């Protein structure tokens, strides 16, 4: 604001054109900010008397390890349509001392053809907020925080228009692929998409990651149901 104000003062006032280059983007900025604020208040149920704004963090690891997976389940105050591949930003003001001025983007791994009441996020614990969440969830296996949702953001690829789908993920990149797989399998099961074949490659440096993420132990050549729907994955 300081910069824009003094830039406005610096521009010549005799002609409106130079200052118009400030008025237009500032106007768009204000319009976007106001609309986003209203949407944020509506989305998080500020007008609802008993709105739920809680997120439960669950971890399967017994100690704080950099890169450990966590599952965050966000109970929404209003149901929300999330397309595959979209992400939300979480504002958890009570998670730590400085968390009130941070928002963090997380990929939504849950998918539903309709509105979702609870979002599921697969998160890699790193430094900062995710490290704090993991540390606090490690003690009892889970922890609950006041959470506000911003979004959803991001675009979704129309995978249901293709017969063959080839998905590649590495490590925690699986978080971006899971909703597409769920969508494709749902479309296959309900005959609402053209998907017939899904080729899925997941590069894992750590064999135990699948267990830590989904509670599944890997043995070579094993075929197991995948994602609780029709379809299977063979580990080699």
């Amino acid at each position, binding site marked *: *604001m*300081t*910069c*824009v104000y*003094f*830039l406005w*003062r*610096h*521009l010549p006032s005799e002609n409106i*054109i*130079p200052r*118009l*280059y*400030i008025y*237009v*983007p*500032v106007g*768009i*900025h204000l319009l*976007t*900010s106001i609309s*986003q604020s209203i949407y944020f208040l509506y989305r998080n149920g500020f007008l609802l008397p008993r709105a739920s704004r809680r997120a439960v963090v669950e971890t399967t690891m017994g100690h704080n390890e950099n890169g450990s997976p966590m599952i965050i389940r966000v109970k929404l105050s209003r149901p929300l349509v999330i397309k595959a591949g979209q992400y939300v*930003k979480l504002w958890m003001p009570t998670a730590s001392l400085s968390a009130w001025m941070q928002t963090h*983007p997380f990929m939504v791994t849950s998918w539903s053809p309709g509105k979702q009441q609870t979002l599921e996020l697969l998160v890699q614990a790193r430094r900062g907020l995710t490290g704090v969440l993991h540390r606090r969830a490690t003690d009892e296996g889970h922890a609950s925080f006041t959470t506000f949702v911003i*979004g959803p*953001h*991001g*675009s979704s690829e129309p995978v249901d228009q293709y017969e063959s789908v080839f998905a590649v993920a590495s490590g925690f990149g699986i978080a971006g692929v899971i909703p597409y797989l769920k969508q494709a399998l749902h479309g296959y099961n309900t005959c609402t998409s053209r998907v017939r074949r899904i080729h899925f490659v997941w590069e894992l440096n750590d064999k135990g990651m699948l267990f830590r993420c989904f509670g599944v132990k890997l043995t070579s050549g094993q075929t197991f149901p995948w994602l609780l729907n029709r379809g299977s994955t063979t580990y080699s």
Partner: protein
Amino acid sequence: MDQLSILAIAAGGVFIGLFFFRLLGLFLSEARGFTGFVSKHVIYPYVLKRRRMIGPWTWGGVGLFIIYVAVNVFSTLFKLPSIAEAGRRTGTLAVINMAFLIHVPYLDIQADLLATQLRTCHRTHWAIGWMVGLLTAVHIALCLAQRPNLTLADKGDLFPFIVCSSPSISEAFTDDLRLLFLCSSFCFSLFLCFVDFHMIYFYPLTGPLP
């Protein structure tokens, strides 16, 4: 430029945009082979692979960045009557470019509005930030060349100094450009000190200068 000219340009832009999208729709089915060729040779091959500080840069990205720089350079130098005009043009261009940096609160909204990837918005933001920094640096240099006896007591000189040293402008940019702005502000301060000190050379010849 009066209001009617602005209206005419805006209306013309809308019509040209609609016409362009109409043409795009007509040729879309024919252009699939061409887009495949472009993707294979322009969009996917890397000029510079991912490094710690920069990259990855593709041929398409580098080409668009060169075109963007060329348009700004052309707008500055086309039929340039004087150095003062160049200073004015670079300042105006910096403000025009900066409009694309401040028009949304955060880039996720811009990516949603333009239906592009967030990574594309980040790179565009990075490129525009660098361009604003360079144009501002040139603007400052040319203004100093025209009128070296600047002083912070004058509001006309104080305001641009605050703009350049304002942390909010550096907040909108990448870490590299933030550093550039801090350096430019520091250099500007040093230059002002130098100009004041420089007057001492003329002191034996002319006496104290006003």
